[in-house]
């Protein structure tokens, strides 16, 4: 098991390194520079600021410095935001995104798994049809439609929450609901598929034959295996949700991480773009590691093979 974890961690680090290299190559090929929007600064000051951030060095040196600085947690200060390290910017925005993302995940699971299980346990009944229609509708509702609708109904008409902004303690509810409802639809479909496939297998028939109750069959025998497709989906989804959904953040005007992914790329803020990419890759890799680990625990046929 330790070999399994060790080799996965090593693979994950290689993936993060790869992400850094590709981000760097893309950024350096994009026209423009981090100071392009500040037009009225003299040439020598511009050169000085670029040099202070190490942007006058040869490209391989720059890339190497990024890798070293991320590996040693000694983060660069962006040339666009003097005095504020990129770690400061990310750590300020991450709690907002993480709170919304985690709540959305809980909502999605709490809605999606019962809905999918209900559909799978009563195949081809009205319950099954109705929940799958609901799930399909959920998948087809873009967050840019659902978000404004929720803001309109619960924010502007009923006045239960603020329609946008990040002021009160309950401002996470509407954005989390927007994302949670949409993702619950995916989870419901995956749960239904996974559970139906599992219930059709031999070992379930064996359990039935030896007289296990329906409850015991579902919870003790089927559920572990039926969770696998959902678990697979959750890895990248959790990472994506926690790093902020850019649409939801812009609809509800939240100071989350999503804005920095867009802003860094649009402004050619090399340091911030490298840092956000590394952070995103770190989360993806960590969640995938967690999913692999849980999968090996839940399904003895997969096991801890390195």
């Amino acid at each position, binding site marked *: 098991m330790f070999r399994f974890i060790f080799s996965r961690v090593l*693979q994950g680090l*290689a*993936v*993060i390194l*790869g*992400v850094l290299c*590709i*981000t760097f190559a*893309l*950024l350096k*090929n*994009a*026209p*423009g520079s981090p100071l392009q929007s500040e037009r009225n600064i003299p040439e020598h000051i511009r050169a000085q600021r670029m040099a202070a951030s190490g942007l006058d060095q040869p490209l391989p040196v720059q890339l190497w410095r990024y890798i070293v600085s991320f590996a040693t947690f000694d983060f660069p200060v962006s040339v666009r935001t003097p005095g504020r390290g990129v770690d400061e910017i990310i750590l300020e925005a991450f709690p907002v995104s993480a709170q919304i993302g985690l709540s959305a995940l809980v909502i999605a699971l709490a809605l999606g798994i019962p809905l999918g299980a209900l559909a799978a346990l009563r195949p081809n009944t009205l319950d099954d049809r109705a929940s*799958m229609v609901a799930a*399909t*509708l959920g*998948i*087809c*509702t*873009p967050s*840019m*439609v659902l*978000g*404004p*609708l929720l803001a*309109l109904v619960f924010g*502007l008409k009923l006045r239960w929450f603020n329609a946008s902004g990040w002021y009160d303690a309950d401002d996470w509810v509407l954005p989390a609901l927007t994302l949670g409802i949409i993702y619950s639809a995916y989870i419901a*479909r*995956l749960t*239904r*598929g996974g559970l*139906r*496939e599992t219930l*059709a297998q031999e070992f379930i028939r064996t359990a039935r034959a030896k007289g296990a109750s329906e409850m015991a069959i579902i919870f003790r025998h089927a559920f572990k295996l039926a969770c696998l*497709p959902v678990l697979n989906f959750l890895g*990248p989804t959790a990472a994506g949700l926690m*790093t902020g959904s*850019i*649409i939801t953040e*812009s*609809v509800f005007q939240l100071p989350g991480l*999503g804005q920095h*992914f*867009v802003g*860094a*790329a*649009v402004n*050619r803020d090399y340091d911030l*773009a490298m840092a*956000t*990419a590394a952070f*995103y*890759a770190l989360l*993806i*890799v960590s969640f995938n590691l967690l999913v692999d680990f849980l999968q090996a625990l839940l399904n003895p046929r997969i096991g801890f093979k390195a």
Partner: protein
Amino acid sequence: MSTAPVSRVSENPWLQAWRRLVRNPVTVAAMMLLVALVLICCAGPLFSPYHPNDQDLELKATAPTRSHWLGTDTLGRDLATRVMHGGRISLLVGILATAVASIIGVGYGLIAGLSGKRVDAAMMRLVDVLYAFPFITFVIILVVIFGREFWLIFIAIGAVEWLTMARVVRGQVLTLKNLEFVLAARAAGAGFWHILFKHMLPNVVGPVIIYASLTVPGVMMLEATLSFLGLGIQPPDASWGVLISEGAASMETLPWMLIGPSVFFSATLLALNLIGDGLRDALDPKSTQG
């Protein structure tokens, strides 16, 4: 099937799949809905008395009337015409970006699966790396590098959406390449490219069609996201994403500006998703997913 004449020993599997597809009432309804939407978007503007970008500043924003079925926007432009015109753009981006993603994904997956272990491992590690990439940054940088021209947007989207397709195709090739008919072809002296085109490609078409049909709505959502952020289709032209973002900005006072484009966009996504489900049931009868 029991009524089929005995002499027909084996029927074309594609014909069988088509039969299964049109026997599913939900899929048929979804196909009709999609055809109707495409027809409205393509032919509608020809019959509309308005130009999608013509402003009527005296009219400004008005709720739906008999002469403006979906109302007008803040510049007095006819929304129905703009929605139909935007639909052309959104559907075109959806189809072209899916085509780009499919071509890259299928080519990459075929070559990775059929090549030796080392090449395969290296190619799939690159896919792992790209999976861990913040796609929004990737697309924005691509748009920044290539400019915001229409025909480059679907290339940028296609360039990020091919990863799952590559994995699907490679998985398929790995199970296919050790089957007897491939070994026989190899023993008869068939080369890499011959096996790839003659034996692998025809056998991955099924999964590719299924996955491509489910990629179209995803791609359209991505285009809408980009347009919503102002990085996609540039004004005065509008895709559904642009129209929805304009509508969302003024939904409290001018709700019809959000409702019209949203209904069209969601209906299209619904039809595409249902067709994708139907195709999966028809082409892969064993699957119980979904």
